């Protein structure tokens, strides 16, 4: 039995990938390089707050990526290159690569102020190559000379470094939409993937659920009870205004974007007794019913972002057709409905961008269904096996895959009071993103 167990500690919550009777999960199939990231050289006139913001954000992005062994700066005995040409010096290169540092990849660069703007030169080298070789990245970035400008450059450079290391795409510039009650009502908010720049997007003063960012990042679909009945709403993230979208009799909830952004799937009862899955064009035309139940509900659809070639598209969803809710998959025309063999109480599916895995919330069988305590699990279609991601004895729900196939955002906490966390799919780098109010139902952007 192959077992991989990596323990993370998060505010007293132990999150772990406990493979137990499951086989290993392979995130990338590639080894983690030892990466050094010395402070970037600040040129004259670069404000200290700008330089420190840049260095901190870039460090955190590479740490959060979970694909490199980021070697601590206090260990750096080798000189930082002042310019790219310094790496032609075999002694300098050797100082980084020799034990005990054993650096394999070196990221470095410089900040300068030019005509009121911040200009950053960033480099990534494979220092195991001989002098004159090993350049993986050399790029110049420009942005306003402010901490926010420096933050954006750092995110961009971080994603370029991740890609140059062979782990692209990165998530440093991605966004997370979520529901927060910190304003006194449940509203839709967005934030950077690292919890920065939390921004209220709606002011509807009602129940709000399930925000879903469109693939192009410009529109949010969500559920709102404004007006009395829960209905699907579309919000333009460019104008922060609601867009036209049909309302239906009864209850409509849990929207989900198709990978090309042209369609939404959602669940509605149309005034009848049961919830069914429908698809509709994003302009509100072409309503199409996919499920036909008799005395049970179907809801919480999630599209496969990368369906098999020739497939009409795939949708995972939740159905109570055998009792407690279970996760099913079907083709996007409603055919070939199959239950993911789990049991217990399994809800909130989120399909990984590569189409290989579902993240979901699960109360496993054995009598624990009534506890209200659920954990985040990953289901791997290839192996037909699951992996437990959280072990904290709390209410963990609403996982959402990051665009890099390596991270999950989810909600965790007590009833009526949850916070949002990210964690790598191997259980590493658990991070709390929110603390104000109760925050729930995170959704990671597609890019």
């Amino acid at each position, binding site marked *: 039995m192959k077992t991989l167990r990596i323990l993370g500690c998060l505010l007293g919550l132990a999150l772990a990938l406990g493979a137990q009777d499951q086989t290993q999960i392979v995130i990338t199939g590639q080894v983690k390089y030892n990466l050094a990231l010395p402070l970037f050289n600040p040129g004259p006139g670069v404000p200290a707050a700008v330089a420190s913001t840049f260095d901190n954000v870039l460090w955190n992005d590479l740490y959060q990526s979970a694909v490199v062994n980021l070697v601590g700066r206090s260990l750096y005995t080798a000189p930082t290159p002042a310019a790219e040409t310094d790496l032609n010096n075999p002694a300098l290169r050797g100082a980084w690569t020799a034990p005990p540092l054993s650096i394999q990849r070196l990221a470095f660069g410089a900040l300068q102020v030019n005509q009121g703007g911040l200009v950053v030169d960033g480099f990534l080298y494979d220092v195991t190559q001989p002098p004159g070789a090993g350049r993986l990245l050399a790029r110049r970035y420009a942005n306003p000379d402010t901490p926010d400008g420096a933050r954006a450059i750092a995110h961009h450079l971080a994603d370029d470094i991740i890609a140059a290391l062979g782990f692209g795409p990165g998530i440093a510039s991605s966004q997370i939409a979520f529901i927060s009650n910190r304003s006194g009502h449940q509203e839709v908010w967005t934030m950077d993937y690292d919890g920065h720049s939390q921004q209220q997007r709606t002011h509807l003063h009602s129940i709000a659920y399930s925000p879903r960012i469109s693939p192009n990042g410009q529109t949010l679909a969500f559920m709102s009870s404004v007006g009395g009945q829960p209905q699907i709403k579309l919000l333009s993230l460019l104008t922060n205004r609601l867009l036209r979208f049909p309302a239906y009799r009864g209850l409509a909830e849990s929207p989900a974007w198709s990978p090309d952004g042209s369609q939404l799937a959602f669940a509605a009862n149309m005034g009848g007794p049961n919830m069914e899955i429908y698809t509709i064009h994003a302009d509100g035309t072409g309503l199409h019913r996919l499920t036909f139940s008799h005395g049970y509900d179907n809801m919480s659809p999630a599209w496969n972002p990368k369906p098999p070639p020739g497939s009409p598209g795939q949708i995972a969803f939740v159905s*109570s057709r055998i009792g407690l809710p279970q996760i099913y998959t079907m083709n996007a025309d409603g055919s070939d409905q199959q239950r993911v063999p789990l049991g217990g109480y399994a809800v909130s599916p989120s399909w990984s961008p590569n189409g290989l895995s579902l993240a979901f919330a699960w109360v496993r069988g054995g009598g624990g269904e009534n506890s209200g305590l659920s954990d985040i699990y990953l289901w791997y279609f290839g192996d037909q096996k699951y992996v437990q991601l959280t072990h904290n004895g709390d209410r963990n729900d609403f996982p959402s895959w990051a665009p890099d196939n390596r991270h999950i955002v989810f909600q965790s906490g007590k009833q009526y009071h949850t916070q949002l966390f990210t964690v790598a799919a191997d259980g590493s780098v658990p991070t709390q993103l929110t603390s104000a109010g109760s925050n729930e139902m995170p959704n990671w952007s597609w890019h």
Partner: protein
Amino acid sequence: MRKAPSSHLVTALISGSALALCLAMAACGHKAVPPPPPPAPPKAAAPAPTITLQADPTAIQSGAASTLTWASTNATRVELNGTAVNLNGSQQVTPSQSTDYEVVATNADGQTANATVRVTVTQPPPPPAPPAPVVQNVGSFSDNVKDAFFDYDKSDIRPDAETVLQADAQYFKQNPDINLQVVGHCDARGSAEYNLALGERRADAVKNYLVSQGIDASRISTTSVGKEQPFCTQTTDDCYQLNRRGHFVKGN
């Protein structure tokens, strides 16, 4: 209205005293003047009679009584509306319409005096209006209408909920002007999206039961708040149970 009778009574007493005095003097006279039969005295003129008449009250509603009181002096005969009555006295009357009463006092010489009083009869009050439809105030809605509770993950109407809903249906039948909304609630366990649908099923189950009890479906709307807006927030079975319900809200 209460002062006048006492003043009339005083008048009557005075009149009576004068009459008694007069009678006593006459008796003495008889005893003091023996026969022989006197020559026929020249016939003395009898004093003129007087009479007063009061009605208390002077205005009555039909069916009520008024008391007529009269007092005469120097009279040998008194008639009330043509009927001989005591020289001084009172009598209850219950006229059905406004009536003039007249007393006539006659003395020995046939001289008369009269007095009249009118007892006005007012129309009876309109019959009491039929009782207005019972208008329930807001408080009595929640006093009378009880919520239906559910089992975990279920939307079936339990036997205890049937009892409650039958009583609720009676109330809604007796108050046909009240529309109602059934709000489905769930306990905090499980998925928010799943619970929102579960709450909707519970609200629908309550509505369907009321319709089966004869309540017009058009009076009942439903919605769900799922696990939001809980009635309690403890992690106990008791609290979970309190939050699994179809809750009634007064509509219209």
